């Protein structure tokens, strides 16, 4: 066991830190700074910030040099996310799908021409991507995708509907998982298209989310003509490629996330110290004090789990069985923490917006925490994976439609 840092890691950290210090948006983190609030404001803010990162080569640092990345080592990526989190710098938002999902998937399975075409504008922040996987009847059961792409020789005709597609309304391109063969087992008839969102026949309709913002969409495809050159890899190999994409949903940002959650909890501690119940600060109220300290313990453990996973990746090239366990752990940890945050306010938890404790940040944070236990493999799906693949327990689907029983 050795948790020390190498000299080169230390100097990389210093480099990142110096860049952030110099480049954080003017007034960022001070009360004077006007936080972007609406989705439009956040998109505009994020495009500007991420373009700035891109200009100095801090976007897609994990990409190999030949594709314009920095070829950063795994440890360097971790350090980058840690430092960004420590400085409370804005998180990768608008370009997350492009750099983290589209880029690595295209690098792994795309043709040379596709790589030349798609990769540079992702890194330069000129093109925004969205992930068109989920459908009304294909959520956890993703292989049940029904959106059809009919092969018409030199092009496909796409018909169907996607849902929960984050950023589709502001995206230039879409990672589209669709059905090209209905005669085979469901995961064998899927293909993976890289689709220009400006094509006729694509209609993204923003869905107002639980927070009141509209970040994700329904996307309707009606006789949309998609040129053949947009096909990624081979026909009917989409399931394999989709798994490449999904495998990049989690990664070296784990410890960075931990630091961001820690910032949230420390803010909550301050709020608890400044809020009174029965004449004493909530932080000294025995019940809340225990709960706040418990949240702090759980957060520390997220870091230890991260250290074990990183070690496993460095040693064996994969996060071992710990990946699903880690996701299950931290997503529920965050939910508990956000629940606690609302209860710290007591009756004040009933207010929202400018009138609320923290100007509504706790109300919003609480709602946002559900995204983590639903998206990227819901908790129940994680438990299926853990019990079947890690613990080796039997699969148990015995249900059949009533008429067949």
């Amino acid at each position: 066991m050795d948790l020390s840092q190498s000299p080169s890691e230390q100097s990389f950290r210093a480099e990142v830190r110096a860049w952030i210090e110099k480049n954080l948006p003017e007034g960022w983190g001070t009360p004077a700074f006007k936080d972007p609030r609406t989705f439009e404001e956040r998109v505009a803010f994020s495009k500007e910030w991420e373009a700035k990162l891109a200009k100095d080569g801090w976007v897609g640092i994990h990409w190999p040099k030949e594709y314009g990345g920095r070829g950063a080592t795994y440890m360097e990526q971790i350090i980058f996310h840690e430092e960004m989190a420590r400085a409370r710098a804005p998180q990768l938002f608008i370009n997350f799908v492009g750099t983290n999902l589209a880029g690595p998937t295209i690098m792994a399975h795309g043709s040379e021409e596709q790589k030349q075409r798609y990769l540079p504008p992702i890194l330069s922040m000129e093109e925004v991507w969205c992930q068109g996987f989920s459908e009304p009847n294909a959520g956890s059961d993703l292989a049940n995708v029904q959106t059809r792409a009919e092969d018409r020789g030199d092009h496909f005709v796409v018909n169907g509907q996607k849902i929960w597609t984050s950023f589709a309304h502001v995206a230039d391109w879409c990672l589209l998982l669709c059905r090209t063969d209905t005669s085979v087992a469901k995961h064998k008839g899927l293909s993976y298209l890289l689709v220009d969102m400006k094509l006729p026949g694509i209609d993204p309709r923003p869905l107002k989310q639980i927070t009141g913002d509209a970040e994700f969409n329904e996307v309707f495809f009606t006789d949309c003509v998609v040129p053949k050159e947009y096909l990624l890899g081979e026909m009917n190999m989409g399931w394999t490629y989709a798994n490449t994409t999904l495998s990049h949903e989690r990664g070296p940002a784990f410890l960075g996330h931990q630091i961001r959650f820690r910032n949230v909890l420390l803010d909550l501690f301050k709020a608890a110290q400044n809020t009174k119940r029965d004449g004493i600060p909530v932080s000294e109220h025995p019940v809340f004090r225990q709960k706040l300290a418990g949240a702090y313990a759980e957060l520390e453990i997220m870091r230890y789990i991260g250290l074990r996973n990183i070690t496993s990746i460095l040693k064996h090239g994969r996060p071992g069985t710990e990946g699903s366990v880690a996701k299950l752990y931290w997503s529920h940890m965050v939910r508990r923490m956000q629940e606690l945050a609302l209860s710290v306010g007591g009756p004040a938890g009933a207010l929202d917006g400018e009138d609320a404790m923290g100007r509504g940040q706790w109300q919003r944070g609480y709602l946002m925490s559900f995204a983590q236990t639903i998206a990227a493999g819901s908790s129940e799906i994680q438990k299926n994976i853990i019990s079947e693949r890690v613990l080796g327990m039997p699969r148990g689907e015995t249900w059949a439609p009533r008429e067949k029983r």
Partner: protein
Amino acid sequence: MDFDFSPEQYTLRDEARRFLEQQCPTSHVREFIDDPAGWSRDLWKQMADLGWMGLAFPESVGGLGQSFLDLVLLLGELGRAVAPVPFLSSVAQAGQVILRHGSGDQQARLLPGIASGERVATLAVAEGAGTYGDAGIETRADADGRLTGEKRYVLDAPAADLFVVAARGPAGVGWYVVEDGASVTTQRSYDITRPIGSLTLDGTPAERLAVPGLDPGLRIATAALTAEMVGTASKILDLSVSYAKEREQFGRPIGSFQAIKHKCAEMLTDLESSRSAAFYACWAVATDAEDVDLAVAVAKSYGSDALARLGGEGVQVHGGIAFTWEHDMHLYLKRIKTAEALFGDAAEHRERIAVLAGL
């Protein structure tokens, strides 16, 4: 960055598991459960022959010169086997306290017996207050080092011939070694696999260990306990998963029911998160890391809750069979529930965290 054990440490773990499976099956553990003061001298002797007692002591006192980290996986195996021997109390707790707090001379006198297994030592900390911090220590040491007070919940007290006692002297709290004259009352332990007792000190002669205060000894003792707890919990999960794969109801293994599968997945999550915390705490005490206070409090508070929860679910997965005396599950469950309460329960350690976190 390497947050993992070495290949040698894993080899020792594997050897320990094989050895304990052969020499300490639960049939052996059960030989002692009717005697509240009982423990396995036989197993102890064999462990001494393997050199385990001396592992983490310096060569100068007859040890093998390894570090506390070399004990961590071994403690887990002993916890897995609910081995009825005072290894935790003597070697990983009292012995480590003497190593951390004793002068060179004191170490040279007291440790060889512990490192060879000839002597059994244990810590006596808690009293009527039921806590493990300085504030709960009322046992007094006079200017000559004579101790007066009542110690409770002393692990392996009936087996021990050397007590390392937390007491309040003229210069504050510290550790005192009592070799003779303490009166031990065996108590009925909830954990029937290892004895517990109370200690009456009445002007009992003692020697103060040179380094004042209860930390870092208390921290290392607590971290060692969490390492052992993780081992016991891992056995509960293994038993539950294999039972769920075999036991059939409604014409299918109960392990194919999602309610059972998801329970097991949650048990694994509780186990792995507690294990990460225990390993980190052990690493922190072994290296005197900056955040060692926090790390130990995190591991014990979280592990106490999560592993006790895991133990309960282990019984639930087994159904009626686990409700019997004959089934082994209660041995493991009682070990975990007892460990939950000792060396600071979850609430006590969370209060420590609150202070450390600036609340």
